[in-house]
């Protein structure tokens, strides 16, 4: 049965979604139970999948859909391919999904009302899509799954207030452009190679030596443009801040840690597996240097924009944009340490963004205020929430026991190894700005005066969230916060193991 682990962990949330839809309107409680069960199963299966991949010393798990064997060396069906990297991210996705469902328990009735079952169905389908993206080895199947994640996120975001609907519309436009560019790129590759399997495309390009062909270069640029739009790399980031900050809070807490990171994973996969390191980092290509500089711009711009925001969630979303710059830059450094650092940062960023978003949502819901002055005096009133927020913030700054320190460490050493000093400087600079941002909040929270419940909620944007006043936070919101804060620390403590797993897996592809 362990052969079928990859597909079983996809099917569990898929069936869960079908059952949730059958509950129809209003039955949020049952839908919650169903999605807890289905995502719990899925998380357990992904732990087993990781253990199984780790037990295989070399290579990866392949799973052929429909049992179609290759014909004259080319895959005719669709193939799944799971290595350590994929298994780690699948585990992160399913765990975040599961923990976020705990968080959703009290928020769903408050924020989406009777449509709760549809919310749970959509979020489970989103998890199906994300896990599918990570595991598939077929370029076109990847497109279909990207569209599954996009469509579910459009709907999940638009379930919020009127600003959310408008941001979701912009996301539809940008997301469709991104996905269509990806599809065009795949089309160009198909025209030149006649196959859609990622490994087969690579083999064909290698055999025919098509690396200098204009159409392959254009295909590469198109796929990169598409993926960058989806992951909100700096000049293409326009849709992200509004979409994530106006979405219902439990949508934001799920999508902010995962969506951009999975697309970064797709980018690394396209770079190293589909095209190969020789083509991507080749000396005579124009892009290698350019993209590291683009990531530097993204890091600096994201940090500055975050510093300028007075809205908690907006600030966090601009920090995500800076983090995307870290990962893109790390992947393009042309050093194994840099790639491993980028990959490590996918995991640690997922953990710390999750932690920060949950903490921020609790603060916003409890104080009824979405600006930074919500934090005034909160260490005294909401000490538990603030501990979680502090751990996430320290990780964002990059202080030692947390995972943020270690992933940044590897990114910086990658930058030094490959001589990209501008990237090192940008990382240190952005850490400095993060320190300014978070210590400003800590100061407010420690010394500021408590205002209590605000009389009038001036910001029209939070009209969906009732100001319930500062009182005890339900366990269903605190437990996810603590698990995520703990995972920030665990990912930091396990850095030796994680780094060796990741770099071993990357060594296999880099040769």
């Amino acid at each position, binding site marked *: 049965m362990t052969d079928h682990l990859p597909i079983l962990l996809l099917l569990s949330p898929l069936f869960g979604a079908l059952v949730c839809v059958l509950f129809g309107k209003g039955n949020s409680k049952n839908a919650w139970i169903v999605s807890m069960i289905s995502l719990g199963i899925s998380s357990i299966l992904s732990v087993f999948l990781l253990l199984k991949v780790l037990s295989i010393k070399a290579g990866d798990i392949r799973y052929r859909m*429909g049992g179609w064997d290759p014909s004259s060396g080319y895959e005719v069906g669709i193939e799944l391919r799971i290595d350590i990297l994929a298994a780690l991210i699948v585990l992160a996705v399913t765990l975040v999904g599961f923990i976020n469902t705990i968080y959703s328990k009290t928020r769903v009735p408050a924020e989406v009302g009777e449509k709760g079952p549809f919310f749970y169905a959509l979020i489970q389908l989103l998890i199906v899509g994300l896990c599918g993206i990570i595991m598939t080895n077929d370029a076109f*199947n990847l497109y279909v799954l990207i569209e599954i994640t996009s*469509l579910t996120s459009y709907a999940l975001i*638009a379930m919020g207030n009127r600003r959310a609907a408008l941001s979701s519309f912009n996301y539809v436009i940008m997301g469709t452009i991104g996905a269509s560019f990806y599809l065009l790129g795949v089309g160009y590759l198909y025209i*030149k*190679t*006649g196959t859609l399997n990622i490994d087969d495309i690579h083999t064909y390009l290698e055999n025919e030596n098509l690396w200098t062909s204009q159409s392959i270069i254009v295909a590469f640029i198109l796929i990169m443009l598409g993926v960058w739009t989806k992951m909100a790399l700096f000049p293409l980031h326009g849709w992200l801040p509004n979409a994530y900050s106006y979405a219902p809070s439990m949508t934001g807490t799920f999508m902010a840690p995962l969506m951009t990171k999975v697309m970064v994973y797709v980018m690394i996969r396209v770079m190293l597996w589909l095209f190969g390191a020789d083509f991507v980092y080749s000396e005579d290509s124009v892009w290698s240097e350019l993209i590291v500089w683009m990531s530097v711009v993204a890091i600096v711009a994201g940090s500055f924009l975050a510093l300028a925001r007075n809205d908690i969630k907006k600030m966090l979303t601009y920090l995500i944009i800076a983090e995307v710059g870290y990962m893109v830059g790390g992947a393009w450094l042309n050093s194994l340490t840099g790639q491993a650092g980028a990959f490590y940062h996918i995991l640690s960023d997922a953990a710390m963004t999750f932690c920060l978003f949950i903490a921020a949502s609790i603060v916003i819901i409890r104080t009824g205020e979405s600006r930074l002055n919500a934090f005034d005096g909160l260490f005294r009133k909401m000490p538990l929430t603030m501990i979680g927020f502090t751990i996430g913030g320290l990780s964002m700054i990059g202080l030692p026991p947390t995972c943020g320190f270690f992933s940044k460490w590897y990114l910086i050493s990658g930058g030094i190894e490959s001589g990209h000093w501008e990237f090192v400087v940008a990382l240190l600079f952005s850490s400095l700005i993060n320190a300014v941002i978070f210590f400003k909040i800590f100061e407010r929270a420690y010394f500021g005066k408590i205002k209590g419940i605000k009389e009038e909620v001036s910001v029209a944007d939070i009209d969906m969230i009732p100001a319930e006043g500062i009182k005890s936070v339900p366990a269903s919101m605190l437990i996810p916060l603590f698990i995520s804060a703990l995972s920030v620390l665990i990912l930091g403590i396990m850095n030796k193991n994680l780094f060796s797993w990741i770099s071993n897996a990357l060594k296999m592809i880099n040769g």
Partner: protein
Amino acid sequence: MKFFGLLSVIIVGFLLLSATKDFPNWGDEDSPANSGPVSSFYIEKTEEKTKVPNMVTAVLADYRGYDTMFETVVIFIAGIGIIAVLRTYGSNESIPKNQVGDEGAGLLARMTCSLILPFIQLFALYVVAHGHHSPGGGFQGGVMLGASYILLALAYGLARAKSCFSEKRTLVFAALGIFIYVGWGVLCLVMGSEFLNYSALDSILPGGVEMARSHSMLAVEIGVALTVTAIMFSMFSNLSTKGRLDKGL
């Protein structure tokens, strides 16, 4: 904004055209896509391996059946996404008076509809069932079947169509369709083979391994058709009433 838009569109256009100079010509039989091993395998081996003369259906429902499963899920997501975004429950005040009410369209349109509806539905079922042998399949047939209910709603009013296909029923049908598709794949798992490996079902389906594949394609196409029918009607009824599901266009 307009200028930068135009500029970026032209840059993208040139980029795309610059790649076409080493592309195969129109109708080239020897291009990698047309003569490669994957395409040749589909053309030469499909009938031998699956006994389905329509290669498109075979590739869709068997070789790339995993893709098609997610395609059905995409339709399903669109349907429940529209409900999640748009549907409003409760009081149905403020119905614009200028909309055609529940009585639907005029006598002529209603008579015509009642005459052609059975034929549309019969043809849709034929398209679903005969998708292996002629152009057609679950998506095409499902869309036609969905269109027949939309026509009913246009001619006789949404209430009449909803009496055939209530909201609850659309959701059940949509979920059932995916359940058939995925369940068929799980059946293959249970029989000890890979997901969607229909050849494992030859012990419970008549006619050997090849016919098992052929029959399984029909089964999953029926699942697809159910989902598409339900979601098409659900999309129409929600979009045409702004999610109130009270009175149609």
